[in-house]
């Protein structure tokens, strides 16, 4: 137990230690300052020249938004095409995997383009190595790059004074991939490789077991895909069981590295905000607010998982290792709880245990974590979501002290409040309406066969699926027969809306902030880097999420918890 706890603390400690210098580095990359990785610029310039993009051309928010959408549309079309014709591609398909069905291909392409990585297929049987690398792995890079580059636009918007330009999305996007994601992925992939995770183009391996049968074991170029999957808050597994599979997560050391990778960039981006704007204290306040929520979630989930399942306890069976259903013995209950909170906080979505099998309280926490979707959050977009809460908190806090609200000298007016409210509103809208349609269908047609579990848990399964899709998380509660046209199309659409509207809105907001003149700070202004503002921010974050989702959570995990 104590070693488990030590593991949890060590993971968090290492993450925060590593995130600080990384944040400083990312800020320099965004600003175009001198960094060690400048040797890559000839390569970047070559790419930009081929695409005839002038990296120094600054664009306003509308042009940047169009650039982002255009690029993502190309990625999407490329992916859906490859998935539907993978059988005909002559290389990297040793297991002769067939083409993907249309609605599943739509779901998969949107899922990976939107950085969600919700999987309604199983990697071993659904994808060729070509698709794994040039669709999955490729999208895992570019979707993460899209999120990071968008955040860079927001940062620029906050420092601009009465100017329209927010930088060049193409250039920022390229640098996010080459300077941030690529070097980190190489390091993490090597760690994975050294710990025995496979990297091969060979097909199924035939192995003779101790009992004497032969089994076909799926392998592939796993280690590099898993590295970017974790670092880019993607989470889509190479294999069906995701990081519970030993080839995706070999031992406790890979588990530690993977968990750190999940949290690293999202946390570093909070610090990058502090370095970029030279507002380190404010970054600490933001980090503090997120970390309070995060640690509360981790500690309660870890407590509930370590103390075992009450239903099993009722049978008179002692559970010294905690509730172990659906968990890997090599990681244990506490590390699985930490992973669960990390992966739902950051919109990563990879799992090293089955979330479906966690105790109801932890399941509820994972749901709430994705409902907030701003505790560190997905790379880039997490901070952007968080920023929407900041706008609302600044607005309320400003009024509370008798001044027209302003954030870092920019007045928060009707337009900003409108955008932030809409973006925040979208998340409950997608989750609640989606789940309502599913619940309605399941209620009038119980024989539809979606749910492996009846009652509250079945409700949690549907709620989780839509929450995961809208939060671009990608983890599944499983137990849901999700590869049906309804779930493929509904979740695909929710993922698209849940990804792009919360990016477009904030870019517009950044544009509007950039155009404003800066109001000098006075002793009557709201001091955002104060503890009092931190309290307002925490209140806004928790209250909005809790108020929006309390009834839904009541009928799912809370009812299950109290009925146990």
């Amino acid at each position, binding site marked *: 137990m104590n070693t488990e706890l030590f593991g949890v603390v060590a993971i968090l400690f290492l993450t925060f230690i590593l995130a600080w210098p990384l944040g400083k580095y990312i800020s320099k990359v965004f600003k175009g300052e001198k960094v060690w990785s400048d040797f890559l610029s000839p390569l970047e310039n070559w790419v930009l020249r081929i695409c005839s993009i002038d990296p120094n051309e600054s664009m306003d928010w509308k042009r940047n938004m169009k650039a982002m959408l255009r690029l993502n549309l190309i990625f999407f079309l490329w992916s859906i095409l490859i998935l539907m014709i993978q059988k005909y591609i002559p290389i990297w398909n040793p297991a002769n995997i067939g083409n993907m069905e249309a609605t599943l291909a739509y779901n998969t392409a949107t899922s990976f383009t939107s950085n969600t990585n919700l999987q309604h297929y199983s990697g071993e049987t659904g994808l060729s190595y070509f698709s794994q690398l040039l669709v999955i792995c490729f999208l895992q890079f570019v979707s993460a790059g899209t999120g990071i580059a968008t955040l860079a636009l927001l940062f620029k918007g906050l420092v601009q004074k009465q100017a329209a330009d927010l930088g060049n999305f193409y250039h920022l996007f390229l640098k996010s991939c080459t300077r941030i994601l690529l070097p980190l992925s190489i390091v993490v992939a090597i760690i994975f490789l050294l710990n025995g995770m496979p990297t091969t183009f060979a097909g199924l391996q035939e192995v003779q077991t101790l009992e004497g049968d032969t089994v076909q074991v799926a392998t592939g170029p796993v280690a590099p895909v898993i590295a970017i999957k974790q670092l880019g808050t993607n989470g889509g597994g190479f294999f069906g069981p995701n990081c519970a599979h030993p080839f995706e997560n070999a031992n406790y050391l890979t588990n530690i590295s993977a968990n750190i990778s999940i949290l690293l960039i999202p946390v570093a981006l909070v610090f990058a905000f502090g370095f970029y704007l030279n507002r380190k204290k404010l970054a600490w306040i933001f980090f503090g607010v997120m970390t309070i929520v995060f640690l509360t979630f981790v500690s309660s989930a870890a407590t509930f998982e370590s103390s075992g399942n009450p239903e099993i306890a009722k049978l008179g069976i002692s559970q010294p290792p905690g509730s172990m259903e659906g968990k890997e013995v090599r990681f244990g209950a506490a590390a699985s709880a930490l992973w669960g909170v990390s992966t739902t906080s950051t919109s990563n979505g990879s799992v090293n245990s089955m979330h479906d099998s966690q105790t109801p309280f932890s399941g509820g926490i994972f749901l709430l974590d994705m409902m907030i979707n701003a505790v560190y959050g997905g790379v880039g977009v997490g901070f952007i979501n968080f920023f929407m809460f900041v706008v609302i908190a600044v*607005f*309320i*806090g*400003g*009024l*509370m*002290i*008798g*001044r*027209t609200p302003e954030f870092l000298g920019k007045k928060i*007016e*009707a337009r*900003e*409040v*409108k955008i932030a*409210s*809409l973006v*925040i*509103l979208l998340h*409950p809208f997608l989750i*609640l*309406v989606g*789940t*309502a*349609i599913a*619940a*309605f269908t*399941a*209620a009038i047609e119980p024989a539809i066969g979606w749910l492996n579990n009846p009652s*509250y848990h079945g*409700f949690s399964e549907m709620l989780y699926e839509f929450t995961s899709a809208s939060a671009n998380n990608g983890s599944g509660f499983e137990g849901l027969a999700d590869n049906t046209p309804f779930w493929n199309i509904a979740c695909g659409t929710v993922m698209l809306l849940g990804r792009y509207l919360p990016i477009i809105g904030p870019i517009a907001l950044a544009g509007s902030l950039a155009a404003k003149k*800066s*109001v*000098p700070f*006075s*002793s*009557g*202004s*709201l*001091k955002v880097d*104060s503890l*009092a*503002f931190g309290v*307002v921010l925490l*209140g806004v974050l928790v*209250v*909005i999420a*809790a*108020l*929006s989702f*309390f*009834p*839904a959570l*009541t*009928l799912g995990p*809370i*009812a299950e*918890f*109290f*009925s146990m």
Partner: protein
Amino acid sequence: MKRPKNLKLFQSQIIKESIIASFVKLDPRLMLKNPVMFTVEIGTVIMLVVSFISLSPDSGQGSFIYNVAITLLLLFTVLFANFAEAIAEARGKAQAASLRKTRHETEAKLLLSDGSIKTVSSSQLKKDDIFIVEAGDTIPIDGEIIEGIASIDESAITGESAPVIREAGTDHSGVIGGTKVLSDKIKVQVTTRPGETFLDKMIELVEGASRQKTPNEIALTILLAGFTIIFLLVTVTLKPFSDYANTAVTIAALISLFVCLIPTTIGGLLSAIGIAGMDRALRANVIAKSGKAVENAGDNDTVLLDKTGTITIGNRKATHLYPFNGFGKQEFVKYCLLSSLADPTPEGKSIVELAAHLEPQIVQKTAKDGKFIKFTAETRMSGIDLPDGTQVRKGAWDAIKKWTGANGANQAEKEIEGKIAEIASNGGTPLVVSINKKIAGVVQLEDIIKPGIQERFARLRKMGVKTVMVTGDNPLTAKYIANQAGVDDFIAEAKPEDKMNYILKEQKEGKLVAMMGDGTNDAPALAQADVGVAMNSGTQAAKEASNMVDLDNDPTKLLEVIEIGKQLLITRGNVTTFSIINDVAKYFAIVPALFATSIPGLNALNIMSLASPESAILSAVIFNALIIPALIPLALKGVKYKPIGATALLTRNLLIYGLGGLIIPFIGIKLIDLVVSLFV
């Protein structure tokens, strides 16, 4: 006929009017302006229909009485919100009406183009008409004196009993309808059409006919609409959720949940708070031309204040008399007094006052004969030639030097020059007195800083407002007074365009600037300033250019206006916080009530241990309705603003309205439930 400055919060007449108005305001076309309360009205209508449906025994919607009770409670929620708005309007109107009472129909002596005078009713006057007012007449309408000077009793408007002087061609040429001319005869040109005076505009604003939402109010309405939509989603989707969970949920329960969750408290009080802000300005005798102006005042970063009248009392005063050159104290005082007795300038008068204070017996003995020498621009001295031939002169040192032929060479002159330098460096003005061309001593004139002004500036500094003193003095004197009074910056030797340039400079840095002015040459700066307050006695141009008019002509009024603006925003912000955080308790009341029968485990969420599902829902709805009238006094009076620094203020308000808003409804709902459970 002094106006009562403070109306009681609730007068029976006002209450009666407001109750009627609350029902009139139920008109959906009027309700539409307030999206939050409009949804409650829709909920009431739905519940009315459901009540009838529930008459059928197998409707599954609960008892008829229960449904009717919910319907009535929702209706009361809307009525309470309407009442809050109505009472704020009624109080504003009452305040304005007492001002308007002063301007009932009076007779006006209209001057016709042929020079003859025709007596008409004041309501017949048109813009640019010229009329004549004589001692004893009431001025029929706002106008500008184009000929003559008069003393006027403005107590009807300002409550100040001392008469004021108004003169054509000066910065004090404006006259107000309803005030009374005490002496002399003036020719006045009508500047406004009847019904379009500032007061009329203000009354319209308060009555809501032309009340426009301020930018912050719009932003807040958007946020509240956002919350309303979220809770609409929460409630609507709860129906399929509970169907799935095989729980029958009544429409009454869902609508109650919805109404309790949406921010009805702030939604119901929002416009009342806005109107009350305008009303508070009016109560301070400031007529704001728009709500935005009041709001902007609270956001001010920089305030330009004229030195004279604002920071210092009127004019310079003599504070010390220093005899030199062998003159005795008594003798020197006597000559100072003699030279000033016939001097009509404020400085002269203050010398007489000082002399009377220093040597009371001399004043009685001194005769007022002799030839008074007036100040001219050429000699730059004034004084007196006494019957015995003694010539007394006083003036600036260089003028006296010329008069006496002194060259500053001898010992006495050196001493005097030392004194002069000392006085000047302390912000005073030295006046040298000579007797028979012999230098006799120095009179020290000083600006007297208004008592308590330092504290006001310190208060402003804590609010984050920078104070700037504008003066015609030389930089040295200006700096001294600025330090004494505690202003942050000053403009010395100011010309009218300097104010304008300073405002532009500050605005370029993104600051909001407020200033007060009265003269025509102030008009461009008043127009440029974000908050321009004109004195009512000021010229028409100044009043047109500003966005507020101060009826009291009190230069320190600006400081009050800033606090009123801040109070307006603070009240809104804190009631919003209170309203939203209330939802936590309401959830704990209603959600367990919805599901407790079908999912017994959820009774654990009933932490208030409310008696039954019905009483829990009723109690939450009752609390939700009652909190609106309970907060009306707060909305009307405003949350107190304390200049304790932004962070401390935020902490304080978080504790009161945040933490309070979290805890109070738990207690309130529980108490109501104790009563309700006796009946349900």
